[in-house]
C-alpha cells in the first residue's frame, strides 16, 4: 500500500472528515478523531496489517506517519 493511499483508506475507515489530510496531519486535530475512531483504527490495522495498536502506542501517536511507523515502514511503498 502506498503511504498516501493509507491516509485515504484510514480516513474513510475511521469516518474522518477528509479535508486535505496529509501524512503530516496531526491525528488529534482531525475532525472525528475520538474513542470511536480509535476503535476503527485498531480494527483497520489488525485487518490490513495484522498489527495490534496498544493503548499506550495510540496515546503517543502524532501524525499519520506515526501510525505507519508503528505498522512498519517496510510494509508501505513510497509514493
Amino acid at each position, binding site marked *: 500500500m502506498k503511504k498516501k493511499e493509507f491516509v485515504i483508506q484510514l480516513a474513510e475507515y475511521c469516518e474522518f472528515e477528509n479535508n486535505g489530510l496529509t501524512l503530516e496531519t496531526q491525528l488529534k486535530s482531525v475532525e472525528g478523531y*475520538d*474513542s*470511536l475512531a*480509535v*476503535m*476503527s483504527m*485498531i*480494527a483497520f490495522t*489488525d*485487518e490490513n496489517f495484522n498489527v*495490534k*495498536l*496498544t*493503548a499506550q502506542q*495510540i*496515546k503517543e501517536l502524532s501524525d499519520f506517519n506515526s501510525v505507519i511507523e508503528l505498522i512498519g515502514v517496510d510494509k508501505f511503498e513510497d509514493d
Partner: protein
Amino acid sequence: MMNQIISDNIRILSHTKNKNMGTKIYRIGTYLPENKLTNEQLANDFGRWEPEKIESKLGIRERHIAGLEETAGDLAYHAAQNVLFDYDRQKIDMLILCTQSPDYFLPTTACILQDRLGLRTETGAFDFNLGCSGFIYGLAMAKSFINAGIASTVLLITAETYSKHLNSKDLANRTIFGDGAAAAIIESTANEQIFNFILGTDGKGSNNLIVPNGCLRSKYNPQAVEKVTESNDIYTENDLFMNGPEIFNFTIEAVPSVVEKCLEKNNLTLNQIDFVIFHQANKYMIEYLRKKIGIPKEKFYSNMLLTGNTVSSTIPIAYDDAIKNGLIQKGNKVLLCGFGVGYSWGATIVEV
C-alpha cells in the same frame, strides 16, 4: 434374601433408566428498569456525539438505568418473577446470582432473593462475581450441579447496575452500558442440551476494566480527584475505568480462538451451528469479530439497540429475544460466547 437383592437391583435399574441424563435452559425471563437514557439526552448533555453516530457505530439507541433506590437485587427479583410467574417454585433447589454490583458486601444478595422470591429454605443460594462471561459460567455451574445430583432445578440470575459505577461525566461508558437482569430456569432433561464448555482467564488484564475504589484494597474516597481520559471523559478512582483499546485488543486476540476451541470440543463445525450469540459489547466490536471469524451475518444475533451493554445479561436477553422473535427455534444449536472484565471468557453450545 435373594428376592431382596433382586428387588433392590430392579429398583436401581429402574432409577437409572428414569434418571434424566442432561440439562437444558427451560426458559428465560428478563427485566429492564423503567428509566431510560437516550442518545438524544447524551448528545444534549455532552454535545459531542450525534445520536445517529452513536446508533450507527455502537448499535445502541437507548439504555435503561436503575433508579437511585433500585439495586441489582431488585432487578434480579423482577427478572426472576418474570420467569417464575406460573412455575412451581418448589422445584427450584439452587439459586445462583451473577453480579458485580451486589446490594451489600454481605449478606449475599442471592440469600435475600431466596426469601423475597418465596423459594424453599432447602434451596442452595450464592452470588458469584463475573461480568460479561458470567452467564456462560453460570450455565457451567448449573449444569454441573444438576448432573452431579446436587440440584435438580437451578434458577440462574444475572443482574447488573453498572450505571452506579459510572462517573456522570464519562460519556464513553455512559453510552455503552445499560442496567438490566435476566433469570434462566435450568432443568434436568433426558438428553444433554447444554454442551461442553471452554472457560478461560487472563488476570493480567484486570486493570483495564476496573472500579479501583470502594472495596477493601482501596476504600471509597470522597476526595478522589477527577482524571481526564484521552477522549476527554472524566472519572475518578471511585468510578468504573475502561481502557477501550486494550479491551478491544483482548477480544480480537481471544474470541476467535475461544469460538474455534468450543466448536472443536463439541465436535461441531460452524456450519452445524444455527445461531451465534456473543456478549453484546457494542455493535462495532462484535461485528468486527464476526467478520474476522467468518460467521455468516444471518447466523449472528445483535440486539443491543434498546438495552446497551447489560454486561452478564446481554447473552440471556439476546437469547430470549431471538426465541421470542422466532429467529431461534426448537432443535437449533446456538453457540454462546461471553468475554470481558477479568479478563474472563467462556463459550458453550446449547440446543434449544
